[in-house]
């Protein structure tokens, strides 16, 4: 225990980690503090940010660590969400059915899309993942039965059939999302350090060399792609529950771009980068949108500047400053 205490203290000397800790503390305490300050609105705001955070962690897994820039990853938000929505529409409200199906379907689609896309690389890969995601987007737009582009309302949250635990309770919903956020970071951590994760990171670093030591990287990348798809599907099913609503817009290509952005903003291939990135990205959007409806005119150039000058994201910026001092 003492050893972990010391490691934690050591880690906190890096301002990037302090920031991370701050964000996590905010997430942890909001349902308690916000209503007390009469700002209950923030419970929903941070619940949304955490869901994006989970999706961003899944993107970081394949992009930050794996170097695979999937410009269609938001499609798994849609698959997870719509599975819940469509099942609920047909009267299936049990979480024990909805959630495994949503996750399984996300994984299956990721398997198919990954199998096709991973045969290519570079910009071809980016474009194919984008196009495949668009295919599902248009599919949902044309699905009139399920609301097409008006979206689909979900009348009841997923039911676990356990008395005392209901997602209809705001606090329970919130902390369920929080738990999944921590779980996704934990899974990401174990994966990255494992033999599997090492192959993924090596393939990003030097793909031909991986081949010439006898490892066919394709199957590992495909596995990572499927895991990331399932993780994002979880974010989607949580979003469906939180908002009681799903629409094609949750998986349009702008969402995919925003996810990539959050990961870069927080710091690629860091564990909590996607979480802090989602936090800063969405908080900044909220603040700017409060100033002017034309906030994109500031936000757009801001994104360009981050890419040009702060490529290591927040983690990179804060760590560098510490090293300089």
């Amino acid at each position: 225990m003492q050893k972990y205490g010391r490691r934690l203290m050591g880690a906190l000397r890096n301002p990037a980690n302090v920031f991370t800790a701050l964000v996590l503390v905010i997430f942890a305490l909001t349902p308690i503090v916000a209503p007390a300050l009469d700002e209950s609105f923030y419970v929903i705001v941070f619940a949304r940010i955490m869901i994006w955070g989970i999706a961003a962690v899944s993107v970081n897994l394949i992009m930050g660590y794996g170097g695979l820039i999937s410009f269609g990853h938001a499609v798994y938000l849609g698959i997870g969400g719509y599975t819940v929505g469509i099942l609920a529409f047909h009267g299936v409200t049990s979480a024990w059915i909805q959630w495994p199906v949503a996750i399984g379907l996300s994984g299956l689609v990721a398997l198919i899309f990954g199998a096709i896309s991973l045969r290519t690389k570079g910009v071809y890969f980016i474009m194919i993942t984008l196009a495949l995601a668009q295919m599902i987007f248009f599919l949902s737009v044309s699905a009139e039965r399920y609301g097409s582009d008006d979206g689909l309302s979900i009348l009841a949250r997923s039911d676990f059939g356990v008395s005392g635990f209901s997602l209809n309770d705001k606090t329970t919903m919130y902390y369920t999302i929080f738990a999944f956020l921590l779980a996704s970071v934990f899974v990401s951590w174990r994966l990255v350090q494992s033999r599997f994760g090492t192959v993924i990171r090596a393939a990003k670093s030097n793909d031909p060399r991986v081949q010439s030591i006898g490892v066919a990287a394709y199957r590992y990348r495909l596995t990572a792609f499927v895991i990331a798809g399932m993780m994002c599907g979880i974010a989607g099913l949580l979003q469906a529950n939180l908002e009681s609503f799903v629409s094609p817009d949750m998986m349009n290509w702008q969402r995919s771009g925003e996810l990539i952005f959050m990961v870069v903003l927080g710091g690629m291939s860091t564990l909590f980068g996607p979480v802090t990135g989602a936090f800063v990205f969405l908080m900044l959007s909220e603040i700017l949108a409060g100033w002017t409806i034309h906030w994109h005119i500031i936000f757009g150039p801001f994104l360009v500047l981050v890419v040009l000058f702060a490529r290591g994201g927040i983690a990179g910026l804060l760590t560098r400053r510490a090293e300089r001092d």
Partner: protein
Amino acid sequence: MDYVLLTEQFLNGFQLGIILFLMAAGLTLVFGIMDLVNLAHGSMFMIGAFVGGTIALLTGSFVVGVILMVPAMLVIGVVVEMTALRTLYPRDHLDQVLATFGLILFFNEATRLIWGPEGLVVPLPAFLDGIVSLGFGITYPVYRIFIIVIGLLVAFGLYLLVGKTRIGMLIRAGASNRTMAGVLGVNIPKLFSIVFGLGAVLAGLAGLIITPITQAAIGMGEDVLILAFVVIVIGGIGSIRGAFVASIVTGVIDTLGRSFLDVVLLLFLPANAAESAGPAVSSMLIYILMAAILFFRPQGLFPPKGAR
């Protein structure tokens, strides 16, 4: 089989293919030569529509709008290239994707600021309004024929430019091996500005000539852009010929698919299944096509040759 409808839809598909080609040609040149993934190409499409459309409305002449749009887009394209894009050439594709994504947000919002959120209605020029008979009982709008003719002229012009002129040779040299071309004394920065400007003009032209049919709207470029990327991936990056073939094929398949897929599905599905599956599958059709082509030829139909 309603051959009249089939022909009309085929021509519609061809016309869509022409618009896609105008977008894809610029995109494939920019990517093939400058190795730049430019998501803001769709913004050039939109800006051409708004700027050209405004000129057309102000001068009362659509033709003047088209003519003056060319230098306008050239200037805008070169300015964007010199200010924002130049810094991106040495960067990896992820940076380019993200930065140009930011540019899209900026351009969309700027357009909204200048022209308002409702977009712009550009009327069909009177002399191109109307229907013409093509024989065999087929009638077709004059304006759409105009689009096809313009597109074919541009395609021919590009073929001459890239294949037969000195600039074209420089472009091909740059596409084939940028470093060597630079070492041999080609003014690479200037070449890049010219190529980008050309791409912007082509995109702007596509945007402008489609507005009498669809209206100019914020964000109109993005959907076309994604299709254009699909086209250049199918066609092979850097290949104008590939872009042309892939554009036409994509346009025709997409249009015919939307019109006739439910008929085809009726052959082996019950009526109401075919009716609901029809629009769903037809909207996915070109992506399925793309996935199939790439499964067998990951480099596209006319892959880039030679060292980069």
